[in-house]
């Protein structure tokens, strides 16, 4: 059993609410929506039933040098942008050949994604079909591969302790953070840049989600389409974005006088062994993940003052999770679900929502769940709606549950 403590010293993000952590957090507190009509010519062309999405607030190509941006899929672009912010936020300078703030052999990366860069794959296939192989970019494979986002961050930061890119659909970002935690606890690294990224808004992914009957078709009122825990929810809204944190050995962070946001005290990862899109009806996997995280942190259910729910705004998923939260923690905990404002960032969700959970502890403030006009009576939890709720939190938990039955729970405590 490891006795190494892991803290969070840097935060970075680019989301539908803003191009960095501050604008995203402010947007959450102000009750803004990152969801709108899809801005793309193919929406009408394919006559898709879903015409709404949570697109990035800031164009990633405007944040990167042109030459770098053209070599990166959009998923890789957002990961690099978020990682840069987190790294600088931790007080580290950009590594050069002559100087690195963190020794490369002690630095790792763990950035997950649900699908990587399928948009590149599709676009390049189009070029092959229309113009032949000469027009296919030599960077096609590096752009589409799902380890691309993590790898590019690792290259930029000169990380040599290992680069991981877990894929567990909507739980990928949380699993990235859990992977980073384990890297430090096992002694493989002192610092890990961890999180998740996704940017797969494209006619085919939307069509796929629509055909699976998982997305909202409230096209006439996009900002109110994503409504976790509300009686009138009708599916999630696909989003894009990235969240990245800097995880660091607590003793080293304190020694260098770093600003510590919170401690990552435990995690739980379980699997349902049940269905490729549906959660287990009794929620045993979700309950176990939450219980394991709390136990690993050396706490009890009564200590968990806040849960940042996965809740995607689907009819079945939201109440399944609510029941699991009641069973694992109890109805004393204050719950919020941020996909109402952010949409579903898939591989980015677990990390961006993890960051919001960290900030809730750090600022003593829980953002409200957007569009919660009528709490579904089956939820039976205290869900923050309307205004943000002040809360002096010692411990908070963030849930992420992915297609395929991947359940992750991250337990953060006040530093």
């Amino acid at each position, binding site marked *: 059993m490891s006795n190494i403590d892991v803290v969070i010293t840097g935060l970075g993000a680019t989301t539908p609410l803003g191009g960095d952590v501050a604008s995203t957090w402010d947007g959450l507190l102000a009750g803004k929506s990152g969801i709108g009509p899809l801005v793309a010519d193919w929406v009408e062309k394919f006559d898709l039933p879903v015409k709404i999405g949570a697109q990035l607030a800031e164009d990633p190509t405007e944040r990167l*040098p*042109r*030459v770098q941006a053209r*070599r990166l899929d959009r998923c890789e672009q957002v990961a690099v942008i978020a990682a840069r912010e987190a790294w600088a936020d931790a007080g580290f300078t950009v590594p050069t050949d002559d100087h690195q703030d963190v020794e490369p052999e002690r630095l790792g990366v763990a950035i997950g994604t649900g699908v990587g860069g399928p948009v590149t794959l599709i676009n390049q296939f189009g070029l092959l079909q229309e113009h032949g192989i*000469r*027009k296919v*970019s*030599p*960077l096609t494979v*590096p752009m589409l591969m799902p380890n691309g986002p993590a790898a590019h961050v690792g290259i930029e930061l000169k990380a040599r302790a290992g680069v991981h890119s877990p894929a567990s659909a909507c739980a990928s970002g949380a699993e990235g953070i859990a992977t980073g935690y384990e890297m430090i606890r096992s002694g493989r690294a002192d610092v890990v840049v961890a999180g998740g990224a996704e940017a797969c808004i494209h006619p085919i992914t939307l069509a796929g989600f629509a055909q699976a009957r998982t997305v909202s078709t409230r096209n006439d009122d996009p900002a109110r389409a994503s409504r976790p825990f509300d009686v009138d929810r009708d599916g999630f809204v696909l989003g894009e974005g990235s969240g990245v944190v800097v995880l660091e050995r607590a003793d080293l962070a304190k020694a260098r006088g770093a600003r510590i946001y919170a401690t990552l005290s435990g995690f739980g990862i379980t699997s349902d062994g049940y269905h490729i899109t549906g959660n287990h009806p009794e929620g045993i996997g979700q309950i176990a993940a939450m219980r394991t995280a709390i136990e690993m942190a050396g706490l009890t259910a009564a200590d968990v003052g806040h849960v940042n729910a996965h809740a995607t705004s689907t009819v079945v998923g939201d109440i399944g999770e609510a029941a699991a939260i009641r069973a694992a923690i109890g109805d004393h905990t204050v719950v919020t679900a941020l996909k109402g404002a952010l949409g579903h960032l898939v591989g980015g969700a677990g990390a961006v929502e993890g960051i919001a959970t960290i900030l809730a502890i750090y600022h003593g403030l829980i953002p409200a769940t957007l569009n919660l006009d009528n709490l579904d009576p089956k939820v039976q939890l205290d869900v923050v709606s309307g205004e943000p709720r002040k809360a002096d939190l010692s411990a908070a938990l963030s849930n992420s549950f992915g297609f395929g039955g991947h359940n992750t729970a991250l337990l953060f405590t006040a530093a």
Partner: protein
Amino acid sequence: MPAGIDREHREREHPVADNAEILAGLAEIVEEVAGVAQDDVTAEKSFVDDLDIDSLSMVEIAVQAEDKFGVKIPDDELANLKTVGDAVNYVSANLK
């Protein structure tokens, strides 16, 4: 080059002939693909050592050069083009 004439038209109607024009054309491609300022793309510069251009970008440069000059650069020849001058000479020697 005269202003206002679009690039494709120019390449079809005005095939380049002398080394200065080839160099200028290559410099434009290198800037587009690798972000190196055109003024820095001079004959004696090594693609890899001086201009920091990797093998993937070299493939892109070769494809765009083929479009611009009509000269195909096979992979084994591409590997031998160490400097900008080597590339200019190759294109010049193989112009139709």
